[in-house]
Structure formats: C-alpha cells, structure tokens
C-alpha cells in the first residue's frame, strides 16, 4: 500500500494523505494531465469517471461525470487555480448538473496536490479541505455510495 501518512485536521476539516509511488514525478504528473488516465483513477471501478474537458492549465474548468452501476450519471467540475508542472497543482472541485453548470447549492472543496522526487520514486501529498462540517457532510452524502461500495469491495478482496 503506497499510503505512508494520513493526517486528519478536524478543526480545519482538512485531510492530508501522503503516498509514495514507484514511478518518476513526470509519470505521476502525466496521469493528472491526461484525461484518459485521470478517469481511470478518479472514480472507483463501480462508479467510473469520464472527463469531458480537461486541460490542466490555470483558469480552465475540467468537467467530468461518474456513472453508477444503474447507469445514473453524476457530474462535477474542477476549477484549476494553480499549476506548476510537474510539481504541483491546485483546484476547487464541486458538483454540477449534467450540462456541467456548477450547482451553487452544493459545497466546493479545495485541493492541493504536490509531487516531489523521493528515493527514485514520487512522494505525492494530497490536501483536501472544506469550509464547514455541513459542507463536508454534504460532499460525503454525494459520495457515500462510492465510499461505502469501495469499503465493501475491500472487505471482499480481504476475505477472497
């Protein structure tokens, strides 16, 4: 398991996860820069993601949807705020309707991804934060099936 450190900051509703990957920084960056690779990792296999627009440049909006096992689609967007390839990028992520109009009723989270060279591989640091507990709750409510399905599948793998 590549995750090496996890920190929960309940006061600032921030999750920080550090993972070490056995590939150079450029390879990891490529995953985030290439929509076809990004969609393989963003959604779980049960809720595959499809990125429609994705350019990874500051000021651009990436759009994607995830498809449930029943075929229902859930759309979201990333507003790319900062890019310093291949070292870091920041974006705000939120929910959208199926025409990719951001849903103003739903919270927007802030994310900072940083990649540094570490022992010939890449140390990735993911920081995800939300402005209020209510916001985080709503984000989890949207992703709950994803999270739970994932957890259940992990149990299945464990006992298989």
């Amino acid at each position, binding site marked *: 398991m*590549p995750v090496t450190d996890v920190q929960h900051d309940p006061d600032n509703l921030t999750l920080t*996860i550090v993972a070490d990957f056995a590939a150079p920084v450029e390879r990891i960056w490529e995953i985030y820069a290439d929509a076809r690779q990004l969609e393989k*990792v963003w959604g*779980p296999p049960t809720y595959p993601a499809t990125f429609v627009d994705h350019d990874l440049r500051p000021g651009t909006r990436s759009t994607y949807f995830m498809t449930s096992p029943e075929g229902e689609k859930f759309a979201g967007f990333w507003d790319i705020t900062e890019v310093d390839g291949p070292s870091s990028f920041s974006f705000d992520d939120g929910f959208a309707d199926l025409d990719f109009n951001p849903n103003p009723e739903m919270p927007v989270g802030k994310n900072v991804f940083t990649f540094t060279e570490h022992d010939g591989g890449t140390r990735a640091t993911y920081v995800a934060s939300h402005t209020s507990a209510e916001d985080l709750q709503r984000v*989890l409510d949207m992703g*709950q*099936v994803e999270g739970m399905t994932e957890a*259940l599948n992990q149990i299945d793998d464990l006992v298989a």
Partner: protein
Amino acid sequence: MTDTADQHEDRADAMFHALADRTRRDILRRVLAGEHSVSALAASYDMTFAAVQKHVAVLERAGLVTKRRSGREALASGDVEAVRSVGSMLTELETVWRGRIARIDDLIAPPPPTERNQ
C-alpha cells in the same frame, strides 16, 4: 458521540458480524444505492424469501439497514448515517482517497511479464 466505549464495541461487533457474510454485503450494497423491497431482494438470490428476510434482519440489528412498511411490502434501505457513526467523516473521505491512490499504483505498475518475453 455520547456512547460509552462498551456500546461502541457492541455496535462494532454487530456491524462486523453483519458484514462477515457475502450475501449480506451484497444486500447492503444494493440498499445503499436505493430502497428495495425485501421481496425484490429475495428474487435476486438463489435462496428462500425467509432466508433473505433473515439476512436483512441481521443488517437491521447492526444498524446498517432501516426498514419501513408500505402496504404489504417491507422496504429496506441502507442507513448511511448509522454506518457513518462508526467512523468520522474524515475517515470516510480517507477511504475514497485511498481508493484513488491504489488505482494510481495499479496504473503505474509495470505490465506482468508474459511468457513470450522470457
């Protein structure tokens, strides 16, 4: 959370017992995605209605599933709030992120050597 440590442990026991069965995990997956009648669930498995009803009851006792009646039907849905009470919200978010990280790891893994290459 105002539960005593014992209550928390009891609930964890009930939850893990409920999840220790393949059919119950499958039922939970379905009812988390949306409400299902017990008879519709029963039709999905090669077992009797009574057996499926029993599985739903175990999930219900563990607080993972809630049931309501509508006419002659018993309707079951996954109780995400109850599931969440076992862990914190950040832990739940962590699960989603760990999944993404595991998928990156899969993506960058070198393809397994084929016999032809050896």
